[in-house]
């Protein structure tokens, strides 16, 4: 019962915060290019407009799948983010919610992939195959990093226990041991690909394959896809900030979990993580080719996360 109320409260909160995060991202991106940039609440305007636009469904699409998949993607990534948020707000946790959140975030990408490929557009098909390759590239090191954290800390798969472990230790997990900092580095390196920020925006490459999977989506469906993307980006940054860099643990001995201060500290850390892993690369780098991205992810982050596992097995 308690959990249901917590989830119902945190659903709108997640929507609000993730859209604000996207607005801040766009504003910072513009300021770094010496532009004035859109207002911070621009994503809200976009969503209001998109939800009130007409629908055009292509003749080649298989209509049911095409219509349902954006809803699944939005619902799933909102759920993932609100599990994390209600974990901090109300101290709720369940067995294995770390894996559940990772699975939900992967599922939102997969739902968008299936929906996009159901549109029958050749650009969507290209986007589908590229997104598939990208997921093979970044999901593997990301999962290995998460598993290394789960076995290296308590060992536990509950986010709650990992946070308590950091609070007792008085240090963020990334600063506690070499193996954990390697895992954190691998996870943070995977973030731009998971959020398809520019050096790794190969699946949606706006100037090349016109948003790839989203090319046929219009109006409300596009709005749902945008919500899915914003919420999953927010969930990823929040996950990194509470699992690897739980800053409140530095301030107090046995930092209280469900206080407003620790929530705002976590959100600030999440914002900083978003700035460093999504906004800065998106502004200063150019798009890679799919082969280069695959090579990078299997050279650097995979090596980092595997060595983190080995070090953690050696007890470091």
């Amino acid at each position: 019962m308690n959990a249901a109320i917590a989830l119902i409260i945190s659903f709108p909160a997640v929507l609000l915060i993730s859209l604000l995060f996207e607005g801040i991202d766009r504003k910072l991106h513009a300021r770094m290019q010496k532009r004035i940039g859109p207002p911070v609440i621009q994503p809200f305007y976009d969503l209001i407009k998109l939800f009130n636009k007409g629908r055009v469904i292509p003749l080649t699409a298989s209509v049911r799948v095409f219509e349902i998949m954006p809803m699944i993607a939005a619902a799933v990534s909102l759920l993932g983010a609100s599990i994390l948020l209600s974990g901090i707000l109300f101290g709720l946790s369940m067995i294995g919610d770390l894996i559940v959140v990772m699975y939900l975030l992967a599922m939102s990408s997969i739902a968008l992939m299936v929906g996009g490929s159901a549109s029958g557009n050749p650009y969507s098909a290209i986007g589908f195959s590229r997104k598939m390759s990208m997921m093979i590239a970044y999901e593997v090191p990301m999962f290995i990093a998460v598993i290394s954290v789960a076995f290296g800390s308590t060992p536990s798969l509950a986010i709650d226990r990992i946070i308590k472990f950091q609070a007792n230790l008085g240090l963020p997990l990334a600063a506690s041991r070499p193996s954990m900092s390697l895992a954190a580095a691998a996870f943070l390196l995977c973030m731009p690909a998971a959020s398809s920020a520019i050096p790794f925006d190969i699946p949606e490459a706006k100037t090349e394959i016109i948003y790839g999977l989203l090319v046929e989506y219009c109006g409300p469906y596009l709005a749902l896809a945008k919500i899915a993307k914003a919420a999953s980006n927010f969930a990823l940054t929040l996950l990194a900030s509470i699992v690897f860099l739980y800053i409140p643990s530095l301030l107090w001995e046995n930092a209280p979990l469900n206080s407003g201060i620790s929530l705002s500290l976590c959100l600030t850390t999440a914002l900083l993580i978003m700035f460093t892993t999504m906004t800065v690369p998106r502004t200063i780098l150019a798009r890679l080719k799919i082969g280069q991205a695959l090579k990078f992810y299997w050279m650097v982050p995979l090596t980092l996360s595997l060595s983190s596992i080995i070090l953690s097995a050696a007890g470091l």
Partner: protein
Amino acid sequence: MFRIVSRGRIKSPWIFHLNTGSCNGCDIEIVAAFTPRYDLERFGCLLVGSPRHADVLLVTGPVTRQMLPRLIRVYEQIPEPKVVVAVGTCASSGSPFLGSEMVEGPVDRIIPVDTYIVGCPPRPEAIASGIITAVMSKFR
């Protein structure tokens, strides 16, 4: 409720740009309007690649015979509500090409146009002001 919707529409006009036989002068000025100096994105405009995402159709060039069916098709693919802006003298009046047998234009002979931006090519300020005027008058 209706005011919120119309404010959302005014604040985020996404633009699809179609060249119907223009000399590329207007197209370069449209791109210039998105550069940091003029920064159309501060009004919420985005240059999108697919007509399905767009609210505003920017048409440049007198409509050539080859582009006629494509112009109509792109116009029909944009979901309602939509705005058409004719950029440049060719799109607005057909100017030097009017009467040629290769030219079916100007644009308002084929699809309804909301705003005309004249000039050969028009300045980026004029393009920005034309888009905002069209959106304000249509979506208010």
